[in-house]
């Protein structure tokens, strides 16, 4: 965006501090516009006629450097692009890389339906939410327009997920668009050869379009030409070669495009970028090898700037790391990651099992949990609400206290005197200084565990069950 301080934004706002946006002052609202945690449309007064000019101006000035392009319609519509930075610590990346998994028009119908369902039903639980994948790319393999439209129709009947229509033949794209024009699919692709006809389709059906060329001069020429024709919802595919020097050069093109778009403000190429890790299958035929290499390519380009990618492997060992890495890169670094506070079971605890305390900082919590479960320790693990701060820092900062610990068990209606035979809590070693306080507040016996949860197994051998007093 072109503005970089709340004061600059403030000049365009109504300056009446009406608080309708939820912020006490227009200046505070301005700060939220700068860090993109609120939208201009959250300010009701500026939407009124009197402010129309300022609204329009502000809208332009606040627009992200990389154009945001919407694919699909309705609740499944997916935005891609919209980034303002090149390193995630500078703010955060927006609109996680869209994963489009392919189907093709030579598949038997039932296979196609099964595959689409597999794509749309994929889920992986993570930190209180499900990681999912969100698009279907239909490839025209047959070269037959009828077959292609048949596959597109079947996909559209089976899922509401946004679609990517893939063919270099404008006639095939046109026929497919006739069927799913209301679904705002992304069309792939305009090239140096077919660009004129594909541009006509994008104009006629008002759909976003991918421009493909591994030559950046040609790619830019395509983008400039399409803009001139009034097409703005563009996606750039600079080619994802799967191996050797060509792969190194592909990597460099992604870096160059994004640097030019954001750091140098080159509007002509400031569009979302597409990667095609599926190209791994052009060199490897064996499923495991191809899936591994596809995951490797996907990872390289999730980290370095792909806004959408075409993938083939539905193997869990490919999809799990891919969705996790995307979450890794797109998680907002400004907010600490938290888990829901509460008392959770690890394994199958009984009345004799230990009750262990940790914080609700996701990294701490999951580390402790995985240390316990991987060592097959059945227990209760309490995540105390420390605002997502780790043990050592929250003891020092006062977010982890005896009162907070007590509160966690009360809110969970977890009475140790009733649910355990030992009425004992185990504090993290790094919270040892809270021992006396916790004993006083809870009336329970408190033991001090090791400073690292990796040592819990050894600690358990020596100290559990607790000796009767």
């Amino acid at each position, binding site marked *: 965006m072109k503005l970089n301080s709340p004061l600059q934004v403030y000049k365009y706002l109504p300056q009446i501090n009406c608080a309708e946006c939820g912020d006490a002052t227009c200046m505070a609202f301005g700060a939220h516009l700068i860090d993109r945690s609120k939208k201009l449309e959250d300010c009701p007064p500026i939407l009124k006629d009197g402010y129309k000019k300022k609204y329009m*101006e502000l809208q332009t000035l606040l627009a992200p450097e990389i154009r945001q392009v919407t694919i699909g319609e309705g609740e499944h519509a997916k935005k891609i692009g919209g980034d303002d930075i090149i390193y995630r*610590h500078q703010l955060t990346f927006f609109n996680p890389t869209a994963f489009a998994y392919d189907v093709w028009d030579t598949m038997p119908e039932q296979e196609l339906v099964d595959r689409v369902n597999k794509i749309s039903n994929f889920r992986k639980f993570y930190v209180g939410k499900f990681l999912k994948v969100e698009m279907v790319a239909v490839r025209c393999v047959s070269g037959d327009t009828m077959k292609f439209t048949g596959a597109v129709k079947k996909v559209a009947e089976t899922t509401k997920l946004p679609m990517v229509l893939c063919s270099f033949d404008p006639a095939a794209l046109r026929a497919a668009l006739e069927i799913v024009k209301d679904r705002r699919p992304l069309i792939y692709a305009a090239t140096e050869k077919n660009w004129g006809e594909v541009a006509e389709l994008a104009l006629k059906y008002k759909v976003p379009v991918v421009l493909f060329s591994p030559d950046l*001069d040609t790619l830019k020429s*395509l983008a400039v030409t399409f803009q001139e024709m009034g097409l703005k919802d563009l996606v750039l595919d600079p080619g994802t070669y799967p191996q050797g020097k060509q792969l190194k050069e592909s990597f460099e093109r992604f870096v160059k495009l994004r640097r030019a778009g954001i750091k140098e403000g080159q509007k002509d190429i400031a569009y979302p970028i597409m990667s095609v890790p599926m190209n791994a299958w052009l060199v490897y035929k064996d499923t495991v090898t191809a899936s591994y290499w596809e995951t490797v390519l996907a*990872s390289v380009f999730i980290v370095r700037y792909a806004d959408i990618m075409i993938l083939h492997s539905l193997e869990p060992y490919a*999809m799990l790391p891919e969705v996790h890495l995307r979450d*890794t890169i797109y998680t907002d670094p400004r907010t600490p990651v938290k888990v829901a506070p509460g008392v959770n079971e690890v394994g199958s605890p009984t009345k004799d099992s230990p009750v262990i305390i940790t914080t609700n900082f996701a990294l701490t919590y999951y580390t402790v949990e*995985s240390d316990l479960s991987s060592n097959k320790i059945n227990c209760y693990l309490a995540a105390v609400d420390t605002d997502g701060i780790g043990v050592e820092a929250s003891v020092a900062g006062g977010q982890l206290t005896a009162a907070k610990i007590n509160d966690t068990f009360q809110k969970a209606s977890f009475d140790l005197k009733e649910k355990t035979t030992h009425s004992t809590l185990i504090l993290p070693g790094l919270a040892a200084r809270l021992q006396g306080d916790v004993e006083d507040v809870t009336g329970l016996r408190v033991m001090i565990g090791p400073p690292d949860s990796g040592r819990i197994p050894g600690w358990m051998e020596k100290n559990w069950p607790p000796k009767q007093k």
Partner: protein
Amino acid sequence: MTKKIKLSELGSLFGGLDIEALEGVRIEGDVELDLGQMGLNPQMAYALGHETAQMAFHLMNISRILGYPIDQMLGTAAQQKPVRPNKLIESKFGVARNEEWKTPIQEVVLGATSSDGGSRKSTVTLGGEVALPYYFDGPMPHRNHITMDVFDMPINMAKAVKSNYEDVINSPAEWAKKVVRDFGADMVTIHLISTDPNIKDTSPKDAAKTVEDVLQAVDVPIVIGGSGNPEKDPAVLEKAAEAAEGERCLLASASLNLDYARIAEAAKKYNHVVLSWTQLEINAQKELNRKLMKQCGVARENIIMDPTTAALGYGLDYAYTNMERIRLAGLSGDMELNFPMSSGTTNAWGARESWMVSSPLKEDSDWGPREYRGPIWEIITGLTLSLAGNDLFMMMHPTAVQVLKEITQTLYGSKETEPMNIENWVSAVI
């Protein structure tokens, strides 16, 4: 009568009106554009461009209303009909190299050959980068390297890992030989975990013997790792450093919560390199590096950093951004952070996705065979950090080592293949 008005006045005069016709208006003389005292920074220029474009638009409308052939003058761009160029508008793409990266990363050599007072056959050089990894801004002088883990006693390992080491699990020397000979390890890390008072409490002297055995067994550079016990490690690493005198081993690790000065002293006395280990905190990393240099007198060419590796799904976001920030700071001139980095990539095996038979949650899609999940978890954890600037990877699974080598060396530029055409992916039968 001629009245001079400024463009901005004209703009605001007509801006809010939906003009359909203008009657009895004459515009004569010059239109003056008042750019006066405005400093033209890029943001201002942009805003101004927007402003003048709006004004120009209103002026054009006026001209049109007045019957002036403005559309002809402007050519095709202003016509109402959509533009249909009959050929591509030729355009050249260009982007500048990054000028902020002026400070190279320190070069550090691990291992010493006989001519340098050691007994290694080869050495490994890390660092020397002048840009983010694999970027076009400048040459990356050294490829990434991999050191494979060897333990001085049998330990718990994921099944997929363990199956590779069952025959050597009781002999660190044989284990070391196997990773170099069969799995292509550039280096070997001997972890002296049995020295932990909570494990076997073996003596520093025993540990030193193990290190000697490993140095005998392989001729690549080695990393000497303690047990992670902050009370015991200084004594263990000291004794091990003495046994490996002159070999330029990497001593793992000096950290802020143990007697780092003692480890630094051992490195200086016996010619080794110090691994400066902090936990996901850039300022702590700066502090420890500074202490090693200023307070302990460790030379710059004897420091490597381990800013901590958290597994994919278990804090890799912190590890990634921490490393990327450290590398960017180093390249941009922070002389307390421009050292090569090392990653305990093996931590990936702590993620349940890498070792658990199936998901504990019934809502999850099928996790598939864990034999394939584990190695890829290690690969992606390492690969992500390689993109953030990590140089040396401590790893365990042979397949993970092989694939990480393939991709990092491809991006580095040392993998040659026949050029191929990718356009046919759309219609490829796979």
